[in-house]
């Protein structure tokens, strides 16, 4: 057990996977010599050589497209898209190729790749350094979509993603890279190294995909959250005093519907929170599933607290970001309904 930031945990997962299997190769823009603009691959090139960890041209479709070819050969590429906001040039390769290869070839070819990408806002990133495009991937059959919220999960989920035989979209909330963030931007950052969730287990134990984590048990309502919103949810619960159950989904696809349903059937109320824009966001799918599965247990309509249906702004960061105040209002409303 070592105390680590999420960045160090991600780096550690790469290191463990690369040491265990020489088929694991790591590349992306600035990933090699420099170690990544967020340091997530620092030291890997020096340790494993340039043929295992290297810099790529600035071409997202090329990065994903070559990884698909490498996977068809038999390697396990773990590639980085510098920001999730820049994944769109690779969307054709991800949707039309990576996601479908196993299905369309009836298993003749497979695509065991991991596409890592820093995601989310709360960092004054503006339009193209803050987006949360998870719904563009959960909508695509054949993809798995994962988002950790702490260093231990980041390491375990990344190891599980690398071990997975199919393509995984691994979204890293960059706001959580150095420490937890509950939306109170006026408070100083606390490093993961001073936080219990910064204790990352040694070794190669994976956190299974498709298993949610109940972060706080409660009886009155269920909050479904992932990424940075897990801490926003915890703060809103503390500030409202509502005895809410906070579930960190961790893996959006496959989804741990069993844990969600058990919780909502227990509490009878559900609030969904995500940073991404509202319309056709992943929250809509969660809402539908809860409604379908828990209809007779619901005491109140399900509510979504999300980013607004606008591009992510710069100066209006905290009006946009769904913080604890906005979530707290929703919690109170659901309890009154």
């Amino acid at each position, binding site marked *: 057990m070592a105390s680590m930031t999420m960045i160090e945990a991600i780096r550690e997962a790469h290191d463990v996977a690369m040491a265990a299997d020489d088929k694991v190769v790591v590349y992306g823009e600035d990933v090699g010599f420099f170690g990544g603009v967020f340091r997530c691959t620092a030291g890997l090139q020096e340790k494993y050589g340039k043929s295992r960890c290297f810099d790529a*041209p600035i071409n997202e479709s090329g990065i994903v497209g070559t990884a698909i070819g490498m996977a068809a050969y038999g390697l396990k590429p773990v590639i980085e898209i510098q920001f999730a906001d820049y994944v769109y040039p690779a969307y054709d390769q991800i949707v039309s190729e990576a996601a479908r290869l196993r299905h*369309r*070839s009836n298993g*003749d070819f497979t695509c065991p790749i991991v596409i890592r990408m820093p995601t989310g806002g709360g960092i004054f990133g503006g339009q193209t350094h803050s987006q949360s495009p998870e719904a563009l991937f959960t909508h695509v059959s054949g993809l798995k979509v994962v988002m950790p919220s702490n260093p231990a999960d980041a390491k375990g989920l990344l190891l599980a993603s690398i071990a997975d035989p199919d393509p995984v979209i691994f979204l890293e909330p960059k706001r959580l890279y150095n420490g937890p963030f509950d939306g109170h931007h006026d408070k100083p950052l606390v490093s993961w190294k001073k936080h219990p969730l910064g204790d990352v287990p040694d070794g190669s134990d994976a956190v299974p995909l498709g298993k949610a984590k109940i972060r706080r048990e409660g009886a009155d309502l269920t909050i479904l959250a992932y990424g940075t919103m897990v801490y926003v949810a915890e703060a809103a619960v503390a500030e409202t005093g509502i005895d809410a159950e906070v579930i960190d989904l961790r893996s959006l696809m496959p989804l741990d519907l069993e844990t969600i349903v058990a919780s909502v059937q227990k509490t009878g109320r559900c609030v969904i929170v995500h940073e991404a824009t509202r319309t056709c966001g992943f929250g809509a799918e969660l809402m539908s599933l809860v409604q379908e599965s828990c209809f007779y247990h619901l005491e109140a309509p399900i509510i979504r607290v999300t980013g607004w249906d606008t591009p992510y702004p710069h100066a209006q960061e905290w009006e946009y970001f769904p913080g604890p105040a906005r979530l707290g209002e929703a919690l109170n409303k659901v309890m009154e309904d």
Partner: protein
Amino acid sequence: MTDEIEPLSLNVPEPGCRPGDTPDFSDFEIPRAGAVPRPPVDADPDSIRDMAFSIVRVLNKEGEAVGDWAGALSTDELREGLRHMVTLRTFDARMQTAQRQGKTSFYMQHLGEEAVSCAFARALEDGDMNFPTYRQAGLLVASGYPMLTMMNQIYSNAHDPLHGRQLPIMYSSKEHGFFSISGNLGTQFVQSVGWAMASAISGDTKIATGWIGDGSTAESDFHAAMVFASTYKAPVVLNIVNNQWAISTFQGIARGGVGTFAARGHGFGIASLRVDGNDYLAVHAVAKWAAERARRGFGPTLIEHVTYRAGGHSTSDDPSAYRSRREAAAWPLGDPIERLKQHLITSGNGRRTATPRPSGDPGFGDFCAETGRGRRHPGRWRCAQPARHVRGCL
């Protein structure tokens, strides 16, 4: 000053010939066979720049094999090559008919382009991987993939290896070095580079080949493939099949007004050349050169196969709506099957009476054994019943 400037106008290229016009290829420069020398396989891309503006050709008008690129194949191999091409053309004709009869939903022919994939396939070794488009089934035919399995895929029947999931002709066979075909154009071009990079990362000696049509070179993934192939010196042969047409769009819309498709390789520092795509011997010789270059670690090669799409784009297409019906007959590089046939006859290695039959084991034997609908026979044609159908097409 400004009032002297004429208003700007948009340039939209047009093909030389539309329906009703008389095809004219007089501007199409064709070097004589044997004129382009064969450089060493480790040639510096800069030293062979002219090859991107010429055309490697082996067979002359008389059907003789001439020049540096001749002599790579034995007579038996050429006879087998002719069988592959005839097999593919026959298969195409039969499947085209089957589509017209409503037996399958869709088909795409290779008419006029048979040499490109059939000749290329024999320059590769077991374990190499092609990333084909939907118009390189010759790679399968020449690799011994059972014709019956191709038909099963086209018919989406109970024996379809892809379980009816894919549109007809979107074959996949890892065993035969044939990557799963995707409907999305250009995507496989960059994947081939990744496969080649993987071979290099693994210290292997296998190579990859990418395939793309003239129209799809306009896709972003063409550029991506060239950048990655060049940067990492990937052991890949990148093939552009310039058949002059992308559905209804002539190649000038993708290429622009000047240069050749091969010349695009120069900007990436990739060895680039053009080959007569209707010359079986030339395609094979160039493929072998590029494959050896890749396998020996000298880097990627870009090959523009100059050919003509003699058939419709697909069974859903009527080319007479956008090009002259007489254009295919006027195409100056002729018919690949006729040209190889002529070569075998004039070189005294073909019997004028010997019309080649479809090659190899078309797979009917296995099918018959499985279904019990036919008998096993020794020799090439193991099952009399379906073989008669195929033979009837010849």
